[in-house]
């Protein structure tokens, strides 16, 4: 019994915009299966009285005051941008032919 199917991996790849070949799909399905089986073993150990953890440190209510501070200079903002236009990030067409 596998923890994740090849179809599920293909679906996740699509959601993550990863263009995987058939060989890669086989490869990652196998690897993810090992990872998920390992996680499943931890679940077996965790009893009902142990709540799932989402943060390694048990702290709550960390806030900052509502004070505005200057952000980055434009040059820094766009330093890693592949393309800009009119002080904005330029991105490729969002809808592909079929959706448009």
């Amino acid at each position: 019994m596998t923890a994740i199917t090849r179809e599920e991996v293909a679906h996740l790849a699509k959601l993550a915009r990863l263009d995987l070949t058939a060989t890669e799909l086989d490869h990652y399905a196998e690897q993810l299966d090992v990872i998920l089986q390992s996680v499943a073993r931890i679940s077996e150990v965790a009893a009902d009285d142990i709540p799932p953890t989402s943060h390694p440190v048990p702290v709550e209510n960390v806030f900052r005051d509502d004070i505005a501070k200057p952000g980055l200079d434009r040059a820094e903002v766009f330093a890693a941008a592949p393309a800009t236009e009119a002080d904005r990030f330029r991105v490729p067409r969002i809808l592909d032919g079929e959706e448009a």
Partner: protein
Amino acid sequence: MSTNHETVPFDEAMTRYEPIIGLEVHVELGTKSKMFCSCATTFGAAPNTQVCPVCLGLPGSMPVLNRVAVESTIRIGLALNCEIATWCRFARKNYFYPDMPKDYQVSQYDEPLCTNGWLDVTVATDDGPQVVRVEIERVHMEEDTGKLTHAGGATGRIHGADYSLVDYNRAGIPLIEIVTKTVVGTGALAPAVARAYVTELRDVMRALGVSDVRMEEGSLRCDANLSLNKPGAGWGTRSETKNVNSLRSVERAVHSEIERQAAVLDGGGRVIQETRHFHEDTGRSTSGRSKEQAEDYRYFPEPDLVPIAPSRTWVEELRATLPEVPSVKRARLQSAWGINEFELATLVNAGAVELVEASIAAGVDASAARKWWTGELLRVANERGVELADLPVTVSQIARVEALIADGSLNDKLARQVFEGVLAGEGDVDMVIAQRGLAVVSDDGALLVAIDEALAAQPDVAEKIKSGKIQAAGAIVGAVMKTTKGQADAAKVRELLLERLGVSE
């Protein structure tokens, strides 16, 4: 895109179907800084000037939550009669879209901060006002997205665009989503209930002072969910209409979607679960993308933020800061000022309630206070595109003018000229009166000279009045007011005129 433009007239649709509505309202909080970073939130700033590594989603940056955003959300929850969670977390909503540079939006998923509330709204019916309780499912926090501009193509819309431009100033501004439970049983009132709910919600936000709630600037946005129930056949599939940018559009969007879905169902078709875009110009919507399944967002607890656990002491401190509930306040003011719901709505929409209240507190008569703020002053405010409170006229100036009217130094016409001067920046009330020489002419001698001149100019009118046709006196009074440039007291002129001609009323 759907090509089905068939509709069934609303009244006819109502004979066969029962509308079920659900409303999702997004409110941008008016905090000084963003939700998870210290960037400013000023509307209309130059593109990408209010951004930093956190809201640009740069690797290694870490979010820290804005305390005021949490306080505002709890206050909203309390004002909407919600329960406030004792412990809750943020979640990542994963999706790829250029308006979200991290490729996920920090939101709340199964642990919203506020749940299970309600808001009563009033709608007009043929049988008088009816109160409808709209139940609130949840109020949660999330971050706003960047603003896209689509380039290329003829329409400036995403369809047919060659590429898009992104401004991330808005990304990370605190956004509150308020979701209703399904509202059933409102029948043909459904469009009016939807509008009344968003209107009431806007007034609550305004009273709380948590947002400027301007639909035209996008700080209040509404998505309207609608499905039709065919009695005996169960609930239908819902559509979600977006791009509803005014209170009037909320009502129109629900109305037109009822007409559209009724036609689909009448034709034996099935309503598709999809997002639709409302168009202000046509009052109709067009099909957008079909809704992604919820699990496709792969929500999981946000590991970069710690849980929020508001103590009950903190919640009670915030409850103590709640303003008077708008509907209760409206009822109180209507009775105190002797006005109806419609007259009060005019004041609310003009943003004049507080100014009228302050004017009355300064000794101005209620009807006079309303008259000035919603008349001449509102007209000028609209003309200048500013709020009433931003005009140079102040509450104490209204009180001064009213006092001068009461002691006979000014009449209504002169008072208008005084405000004209104040609005033009000529100084305060007394300075304008002095500089423009505005004062009621109360010298009987001067008035009698003017009356004699008018009588001499219109001997036929003089004869009429003498023969008992007192209503003809208006023409002479008018002429005198003209020669005195409106600076006479019309009642006084009339009195002197009749005395002069030896006629009694």
